[in-house]
């Protein structure tokens, strides 16, 4: 039976299908339809039907990733939303944290809130930090608010009361009354989406959740109707930002969990590849058209970001939201990134991108500015004729002309200017890759480096060499890897709650009880009965007394004080390079990760071929001034034999990507067709 995934990206909608009986994998692409993304999904399905004979009634599993949520937020196209909050605090959403990261800008403003002041309403009520009621909820205050919401045609209401993470009773009561009084509006209370403290971050979380909820609800309903009409009826799943999947209904209840849906698919895929080759430490890099995204898988599991901020930059505070998002560092270097010389005379690559229209100069669609893809083509890694399976003919002359515009001012030959563009992109990728590893206490030498995206495999082996990774790994179908990864994701939910306790035997007993409570919630969430096969992973955020920020540490619910203490010291030392052996330890947050064990995509074994069958020719590649042009053998990936070893320099081509193997590296092919590249002179431990 067939497992199908569709990933809606900025330009293309990718489809990957996997036939569980035959092990056959098929792929399709369509243009993304911006206003209603479900149309592009149906187009991709139609392509697969025509090309590979996909029969929708054979589909037993459907996973979907898209950008509906993040687009609604960044384009501010959510619904008309109101906020109901504790008396005295309606401006918290607009004040935010009041920081000015754009230090020297005397005209700096905080980001605009998603609910304007006149739609933020106050209710008398108050809890203290332990959840005790100080002032009961004043129900009379709700009446005028209901009237205003009706008059203003409010479509969604967010509710945030202070300290609701400790006791949600006022929010529950208020939500019930508003739901009765405003039957056409979505009502969303903060404790339903976050049980963590910090009122601004939780307010923003519940507001954005409410703001997009009706939109994602409509979208999924539309998609479900269309799929049903095409006889594609099976459980539907949405790709979540935490690297797992959820049912459409679960996603609608908590739409913000979809905010980084696409990139999370790639991370789930990288984790799956790690499992396939027996590696639990994986550094993943996905090089798209506009950006490159990197992430770390530690102990076989994606790392989550503890303080995710939408639209955050060096100089913009962004919008903090408290949902589990895979820790992804994104930088403005992708295949379409434009190279230019700035007013200092320095060469810059990105963050401006030529996108897909006009695209890099070599696409011949009117782009005149040199991009990273033009540089890769110019040094000979890409073949103009076979690129993208021959569907897009690249114009090498146009690429050279574009690069000449910067080569002249830099006083470089064209191929050296191309190398310079690659070097700059390379350096910023290295900085980002170090941010997710070294700067967070992980050693890249312990990790395998899984690289995907159209331009990724062309750059991978140099990056891997600079980082001294164990091996560089090119997964199957690197150009549509996010969609592939969605077939590797399992149903997952994260339960995170603020809970404050000084470490003691009693506290650990309480912790154990609280984890049991979260487990019960998880069982209810998956709705597969008491005996559902769920994997639980337990983490706590803890800190030395006096610190504010903590470190997430893996624990077991039956840890004793000594065992817990050692785990925490070790985690702190890994993250921050020191431990305070005598300092008291405090627990601030519990985090239960619950994964429902399910079937994930298997990697079918590839067929043996003759050892030379894959060699399709030779091509000259420029390796920079000292090495010059070198003739490299070119292999077709689909014809490589399992167990085959090939020494670099060499090139591997496939429909969605081109892999370059450097001198003094050797490529090996696993029995499932994964490419593993290692240095030939591996130093002893």
């Amino acid at each position, binding site marked *: 039976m067939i497992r199908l995934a569709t990933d809606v990206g900025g330009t293309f909608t990718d489809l990957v299908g996997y036939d569980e009986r035959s092990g056959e994998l098929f792929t399709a692409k369509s243009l993304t339809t911006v206003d209603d993304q479900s149309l592009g999904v149906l187009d991709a399905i139609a392509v697969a039907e025509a090309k590979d004979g996909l029969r929708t009634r054979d589909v037993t599993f459907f996973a979907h990733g898209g950008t509906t949520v993040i687009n609604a937020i960044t384009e501010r196209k959510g619904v008309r939303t109101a906020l109901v909050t504790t008396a*005295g*605090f*309606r*401006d*918290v959403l*607009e*004040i935010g*944290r*009041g*920081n*000015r*990261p*754009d*230090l*020297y*800008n*005397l*005209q*700096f*403003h*905080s980001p605009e809130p998603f609910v*304007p*002041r*006149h739609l933020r309403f106050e209710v008398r009520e108050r809890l*203290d*930090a332990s959840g005790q009621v100080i002032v009961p909820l004043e129900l009379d205050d709700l009446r005028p608010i209901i009237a205003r919401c009706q008059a203003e045609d409010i479509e969604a209401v967010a509710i945030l009361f*202070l300290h609701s993470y400790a006791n949600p009773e006022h929010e529950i009561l208020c939500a019930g009354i508003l739901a009765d009084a405003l039957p056409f509006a979505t009502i969303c209370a903060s404790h339903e989406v976050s049980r963590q*403290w*910090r*009122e*601004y971050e939780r307010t923003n979380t519940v507001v954005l959740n409410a703001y997009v909820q009706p939109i994602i609800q409509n979208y999924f309903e539309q998609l479900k109707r269309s799929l049903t009409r095409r006889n594609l009826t099976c459980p539907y799943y949405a790709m979540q930002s935490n690297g797992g999947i959820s049912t459409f209904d679960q996603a609608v209840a908590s739409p913000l969990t979809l905010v980084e849906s696409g990139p999370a698919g790639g991370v789930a895929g990288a984790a799956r590849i790690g499992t396939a080759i027996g590696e639990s430490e994986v550094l993943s890099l996905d090089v798209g058209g506009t950006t490159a995204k990197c992430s770390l898988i530690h102990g076989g599991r994606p790392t989550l970001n503890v303080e995710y901020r939408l639209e955050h930059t060096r*100089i913009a505070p962004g919008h903090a939201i408290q949902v589990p998002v895979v820790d992804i560092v994104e930088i403005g270097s992708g295949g379409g990134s434009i190279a230019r010389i700035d007013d*200092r*005379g*320095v*060469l*810059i690559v990105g963050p401006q991108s030529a996108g897909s229209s006009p695209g890099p100069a070599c696409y011949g669609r009117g782009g005149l500015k040199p991009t990273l893809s033009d540089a890769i083509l110019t040094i000979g890694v890409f073949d103009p004729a076979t690129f993208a399976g021959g569907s897009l003919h690249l114009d090498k002359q146009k690429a050279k002309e574009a690069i000449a515009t910067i080569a002249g001012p*830099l006083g470089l030959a064209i191929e050296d200017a191309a190398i*310079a563009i690659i*070097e*700059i992109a390379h*350096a*910023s990728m290295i*900085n980002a890759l*170090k*941010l997710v590893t070294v*700067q967070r206490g992980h050693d890249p030498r312990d990790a395998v480096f899984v690289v995907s995206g159209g331009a990724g495999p062309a750059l991978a082996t140099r990056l891997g060499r600079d980082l001294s990774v164990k091996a560089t790994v090119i997964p199957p179908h690197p150009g549509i890897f996010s969609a592939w990864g969605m077939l590797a994701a399992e149903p997952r939910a994260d339960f995170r709650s603020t809970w*404050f306790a000084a470490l003691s035997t009693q506290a650990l007993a309480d912790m154990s009880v609280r984890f049991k409570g979260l487990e019960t919630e998880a069982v209810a969430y998956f709705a597969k009965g008491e005996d559902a096969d769920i994997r639980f992973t337990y983490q706590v955020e803890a800190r*030395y*007394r*006096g*610190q*504010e*920020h903590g470190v997430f540490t893996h624990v077991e619910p039956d840890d004793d004080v000594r065992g817990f203490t050692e785990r925490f010291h070790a985690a702190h030392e890994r*993250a*921050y*390079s*020191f431990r*305070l052996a005598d*300092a008291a330890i405090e627990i601030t947050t519990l985090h239960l990760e619950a994964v429902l064990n399910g079937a994930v995509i298997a990697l079918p074994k590839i067929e043996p071929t003759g050892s030379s069958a894959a060699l399709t020719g030779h091509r000259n590649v420029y390796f920079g001034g000292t090495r010059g042009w070198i003739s490299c053998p070119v292999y077709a990936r689909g014809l490589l034999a399992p167990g085959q070893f090939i020494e670099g320099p060499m090139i591997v081509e496939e429909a969605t990507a081109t892999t370059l193997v450097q001198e003094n590296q050797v490529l090996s092919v696993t029995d499932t067709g994964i490419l593993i590249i290692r240095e030939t002179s591996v130093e002893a431990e």
Partner: protein
Amino acid sequence: MSPATLCVDPVTQEIIEGKLMATVDEMGIVMARTSMSPVIYEVLDFACGLLTAEGELVAQMNGITLFTGTFGVQVKALIAKFAGNLFDGDILLSNDPYAGGTHACDFAIVKPLFAEGRIVAYAINVAHYLDVGGSVPGSLAPNATSVFQEGLRLPGVKVVRSDVFSDEILNIISENVRLPEIALGDLNAQVATVRVAARRMAELSSKYGITTVQAAFANLLDTSEKRSRAAISLLPDGCYEATDIIDGDGVSATPIVVTVAVTIAGDSIAADFTGCPPAVAGPINCARGALQSAVKTIIKAMVGPQAPSNEGWFRPLTVIAPSGTIFTAEKPSPTGWYYEGSVHASELVWKALAPLMPSRFSAGSYSSLCVVYISGTDKSGQPFIHIEPQHGGWGGSEHRDGANAVIALTDGDTYNYSVEVIEARFPLRVKRYGFNVEGGAGAGRRRGGFGIVREYEILSKDASAYGSFGRTSTLPWGMDGGGSGTANVLQITPADQGEPQSYGRVAHIDLKSGDLLRVVTGGGGGWGDAQQREPGLIEQDLQNGFLTEAEASALYGYERRIAG
């Protein structure tokens, strides 16, 4: 060959610059997440940087503007003091306000970074310590009259030798501060950051060689200087003056008149503070290093606000001021609240230059960080100190209303404190945190932004507060015909329903359970004639409750049509 004459190709240059920024950012991440004191972790009152072997700043993290120009002065002072006596594995500590520092609470940790047996750079981390001893908890008595009341001073000592902490120095610190566990925790965090910098610089030196790295430093400084000069050249030559009033020094409320004359000549700029009064009795004085920083902040805002900061930008600048003034205080003048003084040096230059380049400036802001210290004992009898800078209203600019509730010029990437976190930690309950709408903001074609009101109910039986608020009577200035902003004030309403008392700079207020402490920050000044404000914007302010109909009529001459 000297580094300055050595050429670095533009590709290597860009890669090295990227690595420098990545390194200072990494130092900042380590610091923010591992420090013990709330001043650092919640309000991020610290900064990290990298400097050349000569002590010229080449990279600085996004932190606060107060440290814009202090790093170079501090490191140069330490270079002079330790000439020839620094070895790989040494780390220096200094908190001397007069040797380029700011106030005794700021501990600078400096590590010389070695490659091939010689110093190639310095890494610095400066952080505000919660308490460094002295006459009051938090070490900043608003009425201090000498530096000896402001805590322990360690003007340049080796806190680490050959990678080993000096037990003597740690002992001196822990015996002289009120919260030694926090202080030593912060020291550990600071040392971790400069060690991170050492590792990253070693990677850079081994990959490119120290000659290339040092040449890249020189190029970076020269390029920034060129860009700075180019921007200054676009401004009309001339002398531009401004005066302002500082509302008291903490010892007396007497207004203090300060003045500047800024001269632009070709591609150079000079700020002359001659004529400012001698150092005052109270602690709002600043030393010369902080004055430099204050002026550099505005120059950077004018010539290249978004570009990474380094010393090159400031080469076209000369700061002139005789010694011993309020902006160039010397030992033993108190400097605990130096930023309450130095912000006025910034604002003078800002006010003088704003008309020349409206695209980069705004009208006057609430200016003062309005820091309040609340201390006492909690339910379990443990001492606590809660320190909080407050956010406020900024001035309008040519095309946009002023910003509501963002942090004052002297800070930067500085967060407000979460109400839920405060209440879990301290015996305080926040009754209100919102815009100071009733206080208003400067009217104008583009009005000022609003300040905040933050009300604390005291839940401790035994507490006290102190603080130092500026701009309590001299209001934020309007520009181009815009109205003045509004005042900052600290108010206490006793539990027994007495009348609220108002304060500005106050050394001690006794507090008991049920008392209400109210922080009010002002709105910014307006830009342009209020009568020219578009009706649509006035309607929007009415709808959002930023303006009453009476105010709309009085300030803007606007009469609301009755909604249909």
